[in-house]
């Protein structure tokens, strides 16, 4: 059943059109800007909910127009896309509230929210791209929209980080362009289709198909921060807290992980990728990244850097679940796309609150912060425990399915990997919690920054997302939970 195709277009346009308006608003029009921001974000959540409902009823949306001979700009709303845009729409709304509170008196707000909006538009475009060509367009747009956010503070350090970020991501984008072109030349199509489009190429030229896999996965692997392409992520930590939250939970690294899914499932097809012998190296890469990120996280004293290395590690769970080539692991991977987003955004917003309210930016300064900011630290603790994998929290659900998938795929080492990773997670998160709750804060010296009230716009968002972490874990089997939707998606990708 096909309907008028405008709904996906509206969802894209809400934030795309809001962006120039936000740019044009004068700095002083704070109320109007906040109104537009929140209004558009709320509208988008409503539209996405409606779209999700329609798609679950079996409606197929397809918007396309020809951009080059034979090549289309194509948006589609398949269940996998719904999964990702729901995440981005909901977390965008929450992050918008947080950003308004965070940047209330800062400079360049017009520019910030303009690019912020553009960034979400790009994420939505990535989610709904119906072929690799369209995906590429939004993938590059995402880079361009996030760069000004990363360097928002305008310091020398921020610009250095921005340059590294730009070089990594644009180089990745260029390789993706190369891969897209190669796919187009080899297969004559760039469409995403469950089961893949490359069967004929594989029989004719196996080596070319293998090289194509390396190029495409390597290109999106830059944004997914796969080792050895991860170095930009910890450096990009100089960005303001809401930007880090968005980058780590929804936008950039998720775009990479999502890209890996599209490439493996819908360009190659999981069976073809397996037959090419490419999934095992990818799984190995993911495993190395998981361990490496966790090990690096332990040694970081800067809170945001520790969280960043934790992201490097956690996002690769998604890649691992894809690469194991088992439907059960795939459920874990897709669920983790959502779960990791909720957990990580909570932690980044909490870290931002610590810096804003107490001036605490390092782990070694965290003594006693639990009593100073109980709400924020409760949220942080919930997310941290979930990340470690405490049942029945969100992280446990994804790890459970990943482990089952590992067994299903005959890869027993996955269990050891997950246990080891959980142990490492505990090693870098528990000391933070211990300091926060069980150590007394040092007596405030005269020169220490005084405690500031942070206001509800900063306090509420992490608590909200922490409650969502509890909900997606506790009610994982309820209808319309991320896990349930995930099963629906996997059934399609594995063509069951």
């Amino acid at each position: 059943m096909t309907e008028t195709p405008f709904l996906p277009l509206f969802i894209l346009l809400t934030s795309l059109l809001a962006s120039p308006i936000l740019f044009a608003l004068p700095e002083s029009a704070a109320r109007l800007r906040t109104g537009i921001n929140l209004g558009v974000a709320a509208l988008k959540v409503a539209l996405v909910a409606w779209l999700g409902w329609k798609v679950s009823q079996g409606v197929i949306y397809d918007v396309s127009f020809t951009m080059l001979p034979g090549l289309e700009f194509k948006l589609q709303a398949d269940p996998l896309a719904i999964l990702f845009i729901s995440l981005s729409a909901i977390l965008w709304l929450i992050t918008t509230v947080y950003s308004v509170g965070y940047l209330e008196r800062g400079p360049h707000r017009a520019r910030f929210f303009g690019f912020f909006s553009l960034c979400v538009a790009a994420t939505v475009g990535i989610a709904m791209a119906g072929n690799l060509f369209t995906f590429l367009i939004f993938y590059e747009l995402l880079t361009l929209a996030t760069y000004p956010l990363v360097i928002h503070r305008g310091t020398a350090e921020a610009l250095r980080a921005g340059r590294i970020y730009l070089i990594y991501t644009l180089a990745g984008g260029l390789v993706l362009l190369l891969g897209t072109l190669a796919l187009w030349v080899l297969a004559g199509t760039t469409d995403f289709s469950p089961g893949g489009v490359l069967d004929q190429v594989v029989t004719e030229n196996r080596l070319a198909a293998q090289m194509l896999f390396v190029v495409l996965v390597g290109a999106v692997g830059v944004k997914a921060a796969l080792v050895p392409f991860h170095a930009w992520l910890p450096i990009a930590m100089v960005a303001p807290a809401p930007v880090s939250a968005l980058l780590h939970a929804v936008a950039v690294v998720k775009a990479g992980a999502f890209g890996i899914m599209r490439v493996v499932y819908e360009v190659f097809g999981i069976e073809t990728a397996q037959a090419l012998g490419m999934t095992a190296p990818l799984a190995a890469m993911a495993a190395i990244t998981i361990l490496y990120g966790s090990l690096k996280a332990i040694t970081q004293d800067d809170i945001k850097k520790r969280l960043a290395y934790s992201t490097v590690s956690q996002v690769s769970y998604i890649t691992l679940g894809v690469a194991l080539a088992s439907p059960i692991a795939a459920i874990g991977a897709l669920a983790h796309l959502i779960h990791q987003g909720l957990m990580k955004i909570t932690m980044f917003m909490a870290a931002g609150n610590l810096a804003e309210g107490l001036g605490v930016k390092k782990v070694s300064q965290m003594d006693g912060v639990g009593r100073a900011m109980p709400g924020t630290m409760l949220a942080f603790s919930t997310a941290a425990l979930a990340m470690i994998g405490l049942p029945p929290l969100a992280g446990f659900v994804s790890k459970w399915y990943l482990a089952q998938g590992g067994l299903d795929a005959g890869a027993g080492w996955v269990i050891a990997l997950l246990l080891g990773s959980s142990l490492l997670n505990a090693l870098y998160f528990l000391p933070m919690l211990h300091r926060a709750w069980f150590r007394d804060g040092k007596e405030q010296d005269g020169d220490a920054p005084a405690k500031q009230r942070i206001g509800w716009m900063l306090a509420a968002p992490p608590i909200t997302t922490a409650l969502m972490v509890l909900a997606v874990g506790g009610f994982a089997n309820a209808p319309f939970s991320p896990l349930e939707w995930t099963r629906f998606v996997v059934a399609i990708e594995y063509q069951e």
Partner: protein
Amino acid sequence: MMIDPLTLSIFVPLFGAILTFVFPRVATVSALLAVLGTCGAVFVLALKILAAGEVLVPLGGWAPPLGITLRADGLSVAMLAMTALVGLLVSLGALESLRDLRQRQYFWPLWLLLLTGMNGVYLSTDLFNLYVMIEVIALGAVGLTVLSGTREAVRAGLEYMYASILGALLFLMGVGFIYLQIGRLDFAGLIAAEASGATSAALALMVVGLLLKTALFPLHFWLPAAHANATAPASALLSGLVVKAALYIFLRLSTYMPLPDETLVTLIGALGAGAVLWGGVQALRTERLKLLVAWSTVVQIGLIFIAFARAGQAGLTESWKAAAVLILAHGMAKAAMFLAAGRIKDEVGHDRIADLDKSEIRPTLAQFTFAIAAISLIGLPPSLGFIGKWSLMEGAMAAGYWHWVAVTMIGTLMSVAYFSRVFAGFLRFDRMRGELSEHKGWALADVAPLTLAAAAISLGLMAAPILSFIELGYPFGAAP
């Protein structure tokens, strides 16, 4: 007979040039009217092309080889339209930025003369006519270069003039050889003629002359200084439009007098690769914003020649499309970028890249325009520059010419590197000595470059209709 749009698009700017020169008091108004009139003529012509594919007008009723015929097809009208659009917006942008009376007095006649020559090139069908037109262009272009009157501009203008005269002379010698050899100069006559050693020599002379005029590496020596030291509207016209005339003649000529062998096509591409790499290195090293933009023109010209050579001799029937798209994209984006750079220089007071971030004044809109134009020049989606780069790489890849793919990718990375030097100057705020001045809001002079840059980006979404338009009348497919 005179009222057909082809003739009009040459004679309206010509009369405009005379009018603005004789009556400088009403120069601005009459110049704008002339440019608008040209736009109208081009629009009518575009409609005709859409209906008929090609339009031929024998001037005075004489058919070639005796008379002169004007011919328009999809490609030439696309070039005319780009020229008219860029010309109109640069004219609007020039309204505020021309400082003194002398500049205003000479800018308009020179620019309209230039427009006459450009339109003439796009519509000519014989070699001698082309020679006349490139001389007309050179007259206007050299004048525009020295218009600012600074010592550097005059020196650069002189160098430009020598290069230009030399290029035209080489071209004229080639034309003379052809005439001696086959007795005809119209394109139909060229196609009919048999290739011989003498015609090849003539072709070589003409091509070298054209390459000098379009500033392909290593014949680019005159370009950076000339384009960087002119006033902003003049730079926009010189970089966005003028170098395209010789490039266009080269593209046309390659059909009517095919390059005799594969090595030459590869050589042309190799020179393009040299331009991309050398221009990129220079853009990375230069200290001035406008010089950086000028070096980017050298790079882009090289890229267009790589597009021409992307699939070798056998691929020429398709490759010209990639080159044409890159020409159109560069015209708009570079004009926007030069206008924006001029605005930035005016507001900040200098154009030293390293000191841009020390300024308390940030012309936000001009900086934004510069960045958008850079997106098209780097070739990021969905801009028209991206479409051009996509077509280039697609053709090279399909033909198995991976070296062109590699050069293009390296060039893209270099362009990211040199443009991000400028972005750092825009976006860094911790080196200012005072407080950031309040954003001054919109300036009329920002509208023109912003429109051009936005067009360069958004026309990428219309690539399919543009590609089918430039094929109308079979510019390179069938004999005219």
